[in-house]
């Protein structure tokens, strides 16, 4: 993994670690392009607070903002998130296999008392 990818991963994870930001992303996953005021509507926080969250998401490369006339629309960019998901998937596969082997190893030779008790 090259350094720039590592940075992207850090930023993605940081951006995703907030529930409001995840909710914003989930909304953008459902609709291709949503205006900022429309995005902010379901949240019990101020518009500037939502703008700040959108800044974080944009810095992490998770969304783009586009001005059309007087409205600003946001769009989702899925690629950095796919890298984060790939990191977790890779390690999930690796550790599950490792822990299968660990389990088999430590369970292989139980003290004789256990066997006697089973019978």
């Amino acid at each position, binding site marked *: *993994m090259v350094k720039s990818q590592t940075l992207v991963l850090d930023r993605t994870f940081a951006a995703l670690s907030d*529930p409001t930001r995840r909710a914003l992303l*989930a909304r953008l996953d459902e609709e291709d392009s949503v205006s900022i005021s429309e995005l902010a509507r379901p949240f019990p926080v101020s518009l500037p607070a939502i703008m700040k969250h959108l800044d974080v998401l944009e810095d992490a490369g998770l969304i783009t903002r586009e001005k059309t006339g007087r409205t600003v629309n946001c769009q989702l960019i899925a690629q950095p998130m*796919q890298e984060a*998901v790939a990191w977790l998937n890779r390690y999930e596969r690796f*550790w*599950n296999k*490792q822990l299968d082997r*660990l389990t088999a190893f430590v369970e292989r030779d139980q003290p004789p008392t256990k066997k006697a008790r089973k019978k």
Partner: protein
Amino acid sequence: MTKPSLTIRRRIKASPEKLFRAWTDPANIRQWWGPDDGPVLHAEADLRVGGAFRVKFRMLDGDEHECGGTYREIVPNEKLIFTWQWLSDADEVETLVTVLLQPDGDGTAMTFTHAQFQDEKTRDGHQAGWSGSFDKLERAFGAP
């Protein structure tokens, strides 16, 4: 603030002592380390806080991999925390592995966690249970 992390819980029919040895004693590590039946080529573990471990193994496809890290916290038979890195991939970000062992009847409840480090950039957020939403994200964006 929670960074995304991987948690695996298992109930294992062996004592915490035996599991702790399996994680930390090179002769034991040789017996199981690696994701397939390929051999462990080298295992060393300097079991003290700040001490290093490294394990090199060959997989059945012939590929060799080496991982290692530094012990951060050691409570014999209960808790082990170490940093983790693929030594064969110098650019990979260092991460943190936690192994918790709790006696459970005649066996052990093992909780394994592999996580990214917390950093200052992420301190301004809220406490978030990441893994639940992660499933949703995974469904939304698709696993490779």
